[in-house]
């Protein structure tokens, strides 16, 4: 069963890249009783070995990333406003007017110049990131410094909601992947498998690089969210993937050309199990597969993703049925890969 309650707990945690401790602690508590070993490496990745009914014929690593995009405080000015830099790819259009939480507990807002005081030329333009700032209510630098420190990370504050068969929440990228892997670890598996929960995906797939080196898998499944553009005003050929269309399989993105045989195997597995799946209709984005597939002498890698709208903004949206069916497909695909010897 796909576990929405678990996902809600994961989405409530703050874990901007490089500051994933809260997410890591939560995941360790969830998985430790079900694993042979669960260790944290020098980068902060969790590497967990899970025993199955039989030894695997192919050493398989399943990957999800713990970190999320956010902001980092770079400067506190004399009036107590905080300047920031984005961590990971954030469109400046989604920052203005958002509520945030700084350093795990201090509420703040990203203000905007009142519409009444703007020139006509300003109204249709997003404010450049360099002109944005956080307001925590401090009236001086000294006051602000009592509440926040330079280098504190900043997360979007956003609701979690499951109306209308959807899941809306912050950091679904990639807590949804984490939830699926935790759920698998808490289940009985047919073969031994390695699970890694990685740090720093959003700043250059850096955690998975060292995790893949350490684990040295023969095959990898990257469990991710990917860009669904099936929204108003986007023509069909540019929608990339659709909510409700099932797991998304990639043949290629900006970081990886995926293993063709595993890609075909995933399609066959979905067809045989009568699980919906769709193909990502764009060569866009990238994920931990980019680092994993080129690790050491190469790792046969596939990405199975959840279609997610509004990636890298305050609140994303996935479909509950995709969350369920993707979890099922990954379970079956993992069993087939781990259960077949490499030739």
């Amino acid at each position, binding site marked *: 069963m796909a576990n929405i309650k678990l996902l809600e707990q994961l989405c409530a945690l703050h874990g901007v890249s490089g500051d994933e401790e809260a997410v890591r602690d939560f995941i360790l508590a969830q998985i430790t009783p079900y694993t042979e070993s669960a260790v944290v490496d020098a980068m902060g990745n969790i590497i967990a070995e899970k025993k199955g009914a039989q030894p695997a014929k192919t050493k398989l690593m399943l990957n999800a990333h713990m970190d999320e995009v956010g902001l980092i405080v770079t400067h506190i000015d004399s*009036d107590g406003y905080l300047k920031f830099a984005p961590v990971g790819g*954030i*469109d*400046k*259009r*989604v920052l*203005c*007017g*958002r*509520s945030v939480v700084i350093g795990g507990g201090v*509420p703040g*807002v*990203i*203000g*905007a110049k*009142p*519409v*009444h*005081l703007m020139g006509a030329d300003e*109204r*249709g*333009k*997003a*404010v450049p990131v360099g*002109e944005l*700032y956080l*307001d*925590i*209510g401090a*009236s001086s630098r000294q*006051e602000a410094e009592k*509440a926040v420190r330079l280098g504190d990370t900043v997360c979007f*504050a*956003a*609701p979690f*909601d499951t*109306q*209308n*068969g959807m899941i*809306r929440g912050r950091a679904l990228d990639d807590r949804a992947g984490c939830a699926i892997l935790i759920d698998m670890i808490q289940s009985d598996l047919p073969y031994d498998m390695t699970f890694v929960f990685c740090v720093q995906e959003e700043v250059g797939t850096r955690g998975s690089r060292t995790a893949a080196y350490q684990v040295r898998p023969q095959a990898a499944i990257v469990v991710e969210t990917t*860009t669904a*553009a*099936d*929204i*108003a*005003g*986007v023509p069909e050929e540019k929608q*990339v993937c659709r*909510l409700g269309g099932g797991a998304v399989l990639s043949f290629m993105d900006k970081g990886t050309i995926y293993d063709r045989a595993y890609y075909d195997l995933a399609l066959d597995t979905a067809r045989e199990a009568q699980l919906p799946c769709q193909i990502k209709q*764009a060569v*866009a*984005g990238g994920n931990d597969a980019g680092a994993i597939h080129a690790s050491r002498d190469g790792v046969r890698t596939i990405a199975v993703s959840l279609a997610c*709208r*509004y*990636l*890298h*903004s*305050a*609140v994303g*949206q996935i479909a509950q049925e995709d969350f369920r069916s993707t979890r099922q497909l990954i379970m079956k695909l993992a069993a087939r890969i781990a259960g077949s010897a490499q030739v």
Partner: protein
Amino acid sequence: MEQLKELLFGLCSAAGTPGDEHFAAQQAKKALEPYCSDVAIDHMGNVIGFMGDKNAERQVMLDAHIDQIGMVVTHIDKDGFLHMAPCGGVDRRVLPGAPVTVYGREAFTGIVCCLPPHLAEDDGKVEPVDKMAVDLGLTKAEAEQKVALGDRILLSGRPCALLNHRVSSAALDDRAGCAALIRCAQLLSGKPLTCGLTILLSTREETGSQGAKTGTFRVFPTEAIAVDVSFADQPGVAGHKCGKLGAGPMIGVSPVLDREMKDKLIHIAKDEEIPYQMEVMGGTTGTNADVISTTRSGVRTALLSIPLRYMHTSVEVVDLEDIERTAVLMASYIHHR
């Protein structure tokens, strides 16, 4: 201050777009009832409370508007997305990717459509509101069951406390003013008044002040104070165009405002050591004061403004101290002969 914060958060959490202020009006009515002999909601949706002496010659009216900016559903497209028009002066730059609440058959959480950076054009352009749409995750048929054209949409934003008695929420424009009026009524309750006092929480300010216009006609006071919000200092806004957050109410000076009332407010603020600041305008004020003053044969009108940052976004910021001081200043003014 804790009590004032609770009052304000309660008011901000109740929806009230122009012409559809029902929830906010009910919330405000409940908050006013302990202090007024009579509170009613009229057919324009205005909340009108009365206290003091009905027969006194001096009849004072305090006004704040209860509506807030939002959007209205204009179309449900073939894929179930809601298209919309602004209901009041919405800042479109805060809309892409924003969580919103759609007040359909029930309250639904939605998101304003936007593309992720992986796919978006890097031109920083923000579309006009009529080119944006709200995603409820529904098909057209489902959406039509749950949402009607004309239903309202609000930016979601839970009120939150910042440092220094400062708070952030959507709708502080002008629930901050409503809170000041209710707090003023509380300060005046229990002591007999020598005048009559009407509290008018008026509708539709953001679309043309029709609530204040009709409400004032009904009340026809001998003098009125309108309480709204005005621009507070923030980066990127010239200091001479705004007040300072936390420095007290801004007393309005303008050709359309009553000079004597303004002088009396300044005099009382000085006497009672209530911090205040001046806001000078060269013509109409862009508030309800403009229509209140020309109602029937005319009403002497003053304007107090509560400094506010980030007006018309979902993260407006005010200082609770400014609301409290506005209430105290009005209470003293009303007691003063």
